[in-house]
């Protein structure tokens, strides 16, 4: 079990960085969505990309997902969750909009 926490016990660099990044990403998403003239598909793709990056920041910088004796299981579990989530959402929309 390796814990890398004690290394940065003086100043919470990773937290501050994560926080700033999150704020930046949020505003970036707002800007892409509301203040550009991209096509709607591009906007949807971009803002979701940004959302996923931000979610990853939460997981790694705030939630310490890569800690604990079973970190690989944890990370694997969350990746699988993400995959299932995408299947559920994209699958449902695809299937139900294909009905006439």
């Amino acid at each position, binding site marked *: 079990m390796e814990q890398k926490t004690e290394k940065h016990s003086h100043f919470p660099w990773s937290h501050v960085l994560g926080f700033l990044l999150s704020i930046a990403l949020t505003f970036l998403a707002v800007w892409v969505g509301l203040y550009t003239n991209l096509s709607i598909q591009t906007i949807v793709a971009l803002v979701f990309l940004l959302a996923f990056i931000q979610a990853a920041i939460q997981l790694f910088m705030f939630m310490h997902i890569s800690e604990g004796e079973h970190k690989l299981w944890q990370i694997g579990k969350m990746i*699988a969750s993400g995959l299932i989530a995408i299947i559920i959402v994209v699958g*449902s929309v695809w299937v*139900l909009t294909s009905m006439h």
Partner: protein
Amino acid sequence: MFDFIKEHLILDDPLILGANISIALTTIGILFVLTYFKKWKWLWTEWITTVDHKRIGIMYILAALLMFFRGGVDALLMRAQLTVPNNDFLSSHHYNEIFTTHGTIMILFMAMPFLLGLMNFAVPLQIGARDVAFPFLNNLSFWSFFSGAILFNISFVFGGSPDAGWTNYAPLAIEGSPGPGINYYLLGLQVSGIGTLLTGINFVVTIIKMRAPGMTLLRMPMFTWTTLITSFIIVFAFPILTVTLALMTFDRLFGTHFFTLTDGGNPMLWSNMFWMWGHPEVYIVVLPAFGIFSEIIATFARKTLFGYKTMIVSLVVISFLSFIVWVHHFFTMGGSAAVNNIFSITTMAIAIPTGIKLFNWLGTLYKSKIEFTTPMLWSLAFIPTFVIGGVTGVMLGMAAADFQYHNSYFLVAHFHYTLIAGVAFACFAGLIYWYPKMVGYKMNERIGKWAFWLFTIGFNVCFLPQFILGFDGMPRRVYTYAPEDGWTGLNVASSVGAAAMGLGFVVFVYNIYYSHRYAIRETEGDVWDGRTLEWATTTSIPPHYNFAKIPHVQNIDTFWDMKQRAKKQTKKGQKEEGNYEPIHMPSNTGTAPVMCAFFFVAGFALVFELWWMAILGAVGILCCMLVRSVRSFEEDKGYYVSVEEITEAEQPFHKEG
């Protein structure tokens, strides 16, 4: 209040009136016996509040057997109605309620708890653990399953059963079924679903974190593997069910518009969400069954499992594929050719990993030394019968052909061939196999074989003709048909088969009684010459702490391996004397059963929209949660089993050894 009861108690139907009376009498009888023999305290401290995974497992199995009976009686009633054309034994309304409760009960309150019971009983033993990771949650899981099951079952005498099929499709279940029946369905499943989800989490953590030293992932018994993968599927699939049920509950109680015909709701969304859970669900029940068969076949073939690693790979592949095939349940809904095509392919792809498993079982039998014990008979019968179920599944998976099979008896035959040959056979096999561990003696083999042959032959006589009925255009869920349809002969055959199955079940249950009276009690732990750790306990019924000393694992089939090595060293094996250390165990919980009683209250209240009672139930639940978290302030650390007690409990070993 009295009026409320009078209004909803079903008294106008002789069948149900009879059931009412017999339920009332049985309840009074049980209460009387408990009081007379002063068993209340025993019941409470030894069973209701227990956190011992073995006892929880046994309670699951008892409940499942009871539900098998209920679902089975439903089935027999349906078969009685369908035996001849234009029969008026059951009205359409009754028939509809009965097939709905039959399907729901068999899958959710029979198959699931039966398998969860076997997992609970066997898995911690197989991995050499003292209990599951979260014993409190385990008790909570059982009771929430149980209160959900009871809630669902009382519908039949109080207020009316759900009648929209176990799939409960909208709009029929919203605009077309005003009574409380559908609410019972929604809330009964909701409450028991919570229990299942918690069990899933519990087993993932148990298996990943609590294995005995040396038991690497690739040394885990196959049943443990299937439990692990099943638990992962549960963790991903049951939340979908939770949401789906909740949304329809909102539609029915709070006027939302998810699945309604009015105001933009989309009834097809229900089918979509239901099957996103529903398809993984059928693999949730069949994968542990595969695990059970793997254990039993390896044990009685006296041979190690063939292709252990590919078995695992195929498990993982199946579990992933199970999430991307759901549309095959509604190919006929009018999706585009592209959608149907993709989902046809993913569906048929499941045949590949399943085929690998099947051939590996055959490989296990190759160059083996088969002993035809009853658990082995059930497991062997599974192989050819399940193949029929599986390949017909692949036929259904071809969307263009499914337009002809859908909603026909071909489908009914398919899923009984998978559910019964896959799941019910595994339940019987697993129960007989682990029975000596549970109670200390084997079930009678001779009676067991009668039950086996009656049930399996009856099963084929019942469901094989149904494939043909499907080709002859007989739709499912019809309460009657006309003589001109030409379906009479095969229906008669089918009903005869069902009767034989019923008889087989009765013989099976009788065997429980018979063996209780007459079976020879076992004196040591290894009654079948087993291969995995559950057989390594010194006594035939493991003590509540399972292992006095946690075993060290060096191989797959650990216990077999240990025995082989012991044989080589000395004839008797080394005697491990004393040197016990006190064992830490969790204490019992009264909070969970009480909390689940409140679940029941809240669920019942919502069924009838009794808001005050619902609030009462909710407050009760919250209080229990609060009590629980305040209790854990005290760092409830359980208790220690003393060395003397352990030495005492491990006695038989010394006598024998």
